[in-house]
């Protein structure tokens, strides 16, 4: 699905890593590990096209990078991309609609993530974990094969970590791929790559 070859990435004067290569196969989850500042988030942002690497290539199987980023990638970063003053229902409707989900798919995501009771609340009234579930709903509502997740479980309690683990497994079973920057192990079978060592 995704191949990274000899990637070198720097932020300002600091080189985060050199000649990093990795691949993501269909049905596979890859956990990016490493110390704080190792470049996990920067690598994900480079894959999403937000950062231009110094050297190396990022290739998506069967589709050019620009098209892949518009139609095949889901991005869930540190920030949830939600407006505090808007109601959860409005934010979900926009995010799902923007990414091409229909009403039924959005409703299904609401059910799966138990968001119903939260929909009429303003986003700023939600806890960090509830906001993360709301942000996760766009991934469920809009099928896209590659998920790029940056610390996806940080604000979630044990119950919802397990529940989202099941959703991730379902995504993998359908042939999707997941690349996640984490400090704790992913709740699905995954291959770990240490950004610091490149192994």
């Amino acid at each position: 699905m995704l191949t990274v070859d000899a990637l070198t990435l720097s932020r300002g004067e600091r080189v985060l890593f050199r000649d990093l290569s990795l691949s993501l196969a269909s049905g596979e989850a890859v956990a990016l590990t490493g110390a704080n500042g190792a470049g996990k988030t920067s690598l994900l942002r480079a894959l999403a096209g937000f950062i231009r690497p110094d050297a190396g290539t990022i290739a998506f199987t069967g589709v050019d990078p620009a098209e892949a980023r518009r139609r095949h990638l889901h991005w869930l970063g540190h920030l949830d991309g939600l407006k505090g003053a808007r109601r959860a229902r409005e934010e979900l409707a926009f995010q799902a609609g923007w990414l091409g989900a229909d009403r039924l798919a959005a409703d299904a995501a609401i059910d799966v993530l138990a968001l119903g009771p939260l929909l009429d609340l303003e986003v700023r009234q939600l806890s960090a974990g509830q906001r993360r579930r709301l942000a996760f709903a766009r991934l469920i509502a809009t099928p896209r094969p590659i998920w790029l997740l940056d610390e996806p479980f940080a604000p979630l309690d044990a119950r919802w970590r397990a529940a989202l683990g099941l959703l991730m497994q379902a995504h993998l079973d359908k042939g999707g791929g997941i690349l996640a920057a984490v400090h704790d192990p992913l709740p699905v079978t995954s291959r770990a790559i240490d950004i610091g060592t490149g192994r």
Partner: protein
Amino acid sequence: MTALIILFRRELTLAWSGGGGPLLACGFFLCLTTLVPLAAGGDPAGLRPVAGGVAWLALALSSILSLERLFERDHEDGMLDLITLGPIPLELVVLTKAGGQWLAVGVPLAATAPVAAITLGLPPEQAPLVAASALVGALGFALTGALGASLALGSKRGGLLIAVVVLPLFIPPVVFGAGALERAVNGLSPGPALALLTAYVLFAAVITPFAGAAAIRNAQG
């Protein structure tokens, strides 16, 4: 097309919620154009020769007020990343946001402009021309304003930087718009000045999407 409509509607909703950007801009516009005659000593005859210019300057300044939130809020809460990965090219997103800014702020300002111009001493019969030229000019302000907002994205004190970047770019529409009003007041056709104003808007419509998208990509990195 559906995604564009969804984004456009969201822009309008955001513009009207949480502080009412258009109301603020219109209020500022009217305050400014009310203060100028008072500061000039309440002599309408003395103010009349520069009324068009003052009205357009006030329109330009009022257009700047809500520019900071055009991209900055989406940048701060991570929405801009999501929008970037949407089905619409970023260039079209910039154009859509500028269009939303025009409809949400520029059109109300243009509707307010005749009142402001008459307050400044322009003849009431010029009101339709004031509104029409302000409608076109506000589109130019929205487009170049979107460019300024994208260039200032992620910088500290972005609002101030936007003003510094944008004000020089606002000089042509202010000159052309005020020129159109002056020509009309003097019994000449405002057509040439309006044509130049329209040319400026078209130029901005071509430049802004590409330059704005490049600036946003740079800020995301």
